[in-house]
């Protein structure tokens, strides 16, 4: 399979000619080739060495996470450095960070679907999977931070003999519902979308185990028109249902802070600002995972440079929205004339946590500006720089919001500092282990690209294209299509 053009470079389909749409699958692939390329990831006898190395590291970190949680449960939350006034630290920072990461998947699958963004098909499956795993990581933290974890079920509205009921006026409870709903619907969306591709893997499977496993998961999919008809209705409805969820989840997370009266927490822009930030961080994580995945598993023709460039543009857009929100917060803090508001923001920029604040600004506002340049949007190593910055910066954003506001509120006598304990640091590292383990298993054993969907956006789907019928080469000449003439196998 060719993944480079005649000059030995990766196919560049990022050229921008308004007279025609760029192709989203490069290398002159036809329908059967797409199935081959994608199924190969799950069917090849053994994955590349790098996959084993990554899995070994991830599973080790997962073990660390397990050990840290065990230590926490057996000893108590005192093993974390939380105290008055900073009673939320790494735990809730990690929670918000992971929930945020879990936004890109559903945005891509639902909102970009409604916006008819065809390029979403190359990355939606991977992004949705990432969403599920990120939300699993997120759900972990509120669960373990409650202290007496054996009473965590109190968060649910379960009838009990004490007639005790959750506090419905608390945004912390809304979180349980919002994130729970989001997880359920995202999981359904991901799974429903995967059914046709699971059936493909089932039909191609050579071993008995694979046949049974994929067969069970494929729910008897036959590929009949009736199947497809119902599938498409279900998909559209799930997209419509997921769209408000993309906005609601992080809005509710922002309410955890914004309903309070604490300067730096109580501000009305929080809901849309958190949503923009979540998409920002989520896309950065998708790029982070897509870049090695496409290289390791030979997916460069389906996750093309154009897909990466588009995602980088979204990172620039949402990063700018986040920058706008920072600016509004700062301006209104001054404009309010309120002493405490003004102090909080000056203290963020110049106080004891200034290093965290400027890390956040540098990573979230300054670094994405590199994406104004096409070079950074379309060169792998160049794009990883801002993308990695965003991964770091979005963690720090939550840290800055949570810790600076708690550490210095209205009364100087109740101020206090915070630094994490080794348990907190290792728990954070461990959560990456959980996330990566799940992701590595997914990419190896499930259809990591939405094969069926990607075929609908190829020119062949409209009766045109390099290997479809009715192909007219003149009609398809574009800077990115040198390859069409050059045979693909």
């Amino acid at each position: 399979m060719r993944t480079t053009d005649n000059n030995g470079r990766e196919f560049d389909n990022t050229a921008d000619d308004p007279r025609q749409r760029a192709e989203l699958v490069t290398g002159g692939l036809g329908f059967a080739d797409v199935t081959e390329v994608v199924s190969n990831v799950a069917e090849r006898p053994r994955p590349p060495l790098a996959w084993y190395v990554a899995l070994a590291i991830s599973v080790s970190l997962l073990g660390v996470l397990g050990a840290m949680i065990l230590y926490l449960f057996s000893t108590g939350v005192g093993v974390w450095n939380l105290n008055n006034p900073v009673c939320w630290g790494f735990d809730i920072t990690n929670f918000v960070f992971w929930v945020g990461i879990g936004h890109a998947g559903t945005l891509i699958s639902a909102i970009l679907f409604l916006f008819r963004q065809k390029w979403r098909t190359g990355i939606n499956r991977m992004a949705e999977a990432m969403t599920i795993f990120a939300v699993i990581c997120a759900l972990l933290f509120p669960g373990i931070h409650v202290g007496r974890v054996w009473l965590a079920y109190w968060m649910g509205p379960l009838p009990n003999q004490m007639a005790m009921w959750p506090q419905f006026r608390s945004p912390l409870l809304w979180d349980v519902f919002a994130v729970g709903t989001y997880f359920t619907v995202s999981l359904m969306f991901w799974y429903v979308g995967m059914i046709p591709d699971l059936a493909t893997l089932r039909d191609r499977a050579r071993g008995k185990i694979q046949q049974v496993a994929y067969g069970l998961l494929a729910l008897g999919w036959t590929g009949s028109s009736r199947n497809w008809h119902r599938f498409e209705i279900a998909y559209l409805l799930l997209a419509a249902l997921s769209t408000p969820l993309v906005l609601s989840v992080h809005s509710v997370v922002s309410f955890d802070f914004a309903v309070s009266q604490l300067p730096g927490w109580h501000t009305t822009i929080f809901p849309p600002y958190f949503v923009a930030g979540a998409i920002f961080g989520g896309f950065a994580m998708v790029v982070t995972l897509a870049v090695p995945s496409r290289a390791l598993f030979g997916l460069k023709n389906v996750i093309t440079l154009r897909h990466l460039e588009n995602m980088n543009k979204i990172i620039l857009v949402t990063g700018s929205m986040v920058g706008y929100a920072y600016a509004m917060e700062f301006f209104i803090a001054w404009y309010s004339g309120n002493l405490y508001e003004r102090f909080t923001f000056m203290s963020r920029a110049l106080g004891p946590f200034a290093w965290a604040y400027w890390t956040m600004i540098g990573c979230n506002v300054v670094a994405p500006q590199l994406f104004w340049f096409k070079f950074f949007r379309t060169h792998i190593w160049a794009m990883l720089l801002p993308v990695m910055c965003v991964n770091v910066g979005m963690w720090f954003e939550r840290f800055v919001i949570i810790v600076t506001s708690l550490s210095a509120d209205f009364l100087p006598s109740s101020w206090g500092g915070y630094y994490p304990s080794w348990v907190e640091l290792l728990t954070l590292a461990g959560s990456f282990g959980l996330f990566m383990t799940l992701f590595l298993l997914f990419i190896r054993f499930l259809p990591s690209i939405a094969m069926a969907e990607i075929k609908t956006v190829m020119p062949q789907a409209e009766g045109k294209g390099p290997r479809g019928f009715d192909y007219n080469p003149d009609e398809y000449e574009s800077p990115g299509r040198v390859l069409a003439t050059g045979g693909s196998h």
Partner: protein
Amino acid sequence: MQHVIDISSDRLRLEEGRWQPLARRLQTAGLGAIVVALAIGAFGLESLLRAYVMNLCYYVSIALGALFFVLLQHLTRAGWSVVVRRLAELFTTAFPLLALLAAPAVLLILTGGLLGFPAAVHQVYPWTDAQYVAKEPLLQAKAPYLNAGFFAVRLAVYFAAWVGLSAWLLSRSLEQDRTGDPAITRGLGKWSAPAMYLFALTLTFFAFDVIMSLAPSWYSTIFGVYYFAGAMLSFCALLALTVHLLQRAGYMVRAVSVEHMHDVGKLVFAFVVFWSYIAFSQYMLIWYGNIPEETAWYAVRQTGGWIALSLLLLFGHFMLPFLMLISRAPKRRLQVLAGLACYVLVIHWLDIYYLVMPPYYFKLSDPGTAPFDLLGLLLAGLLAVGMGALLAGYVLRRMAMHPLIPERDPRLTESLAFTNI
């Protein structure tokens, strides 16, 4: 692309001879209504000033929605919207007249009021009243921003940006009508990105300066987004309505199909929901936080006759249009969609009314009740008609000068062949 629609038989230009007289009549009627409003307004200068400011903000919001729409289509390289984009470009030609209409407000604030206006100006924009500011430490703290000179400079900058940006977008698009050069599309796409920054900042600070500063002790970081949501909503509604009226008059009948209008209808629906989301976020957080400086603004709107307006917005700006627009049918029946568009334009007008008209009370010890101002409603209605007719006539003249669609846009065929799945 499935098939290409033949538009050679379509009428895509308004004949100047036919439409100029209507434009003139509209402008005359508009001026007449404004004169009547000014005459009646002599009995209540504060009401008159508020009515004028609110209508200014209303019409500016629609033009801003149009400007954003054009920028967004270029930025996202949209294909479907090419056939309706020119209408949006033409709407933005209203900016020079809007700048002219905004000039009296700036002058009044700069001069501290003319012809007995000082009291009214001080009541409407309390931060212009030096004596009042001297008593209010909070206002002194923000005096470096809220002062007449800087206010005038900022407004001049906003309008200059909007006039310049919209003139540039239209002229490039018209240039493409002549040359058909695809490089123009690429250039517009490229420069729309930084233009968005300019748009976002000017819109936000316009909303802060002209609307939020009516209650100078009040603040809300989401306020710019709130104004933006209404702007986009009302623009999409006006677009649907305009297409309907033009098609009834026999124009662009083939070029713009029910598929395009379905999408415009979806945008109206989306921005109904977005506005509600933003309005809810602002209200809920302020209500829950219960900090007097913030709740005072809502307290005024929940006393006297204003509570009725608050509830009307809750039901009429969210629930009703949400239910009306959620299904597919109304978005694909042009007459129904046009009717809903009229409704949305009225309800958005009431939203701006709700932002601007209620009086400002800062004394929390004595909030009193704010009686609903009937004279203000009359004046606002008159000015809405007057300024609206004036602007409609002005824009209609410009519409009659240019083709109604970008005739040689490289994505025109894609747009013509567009269908919803």
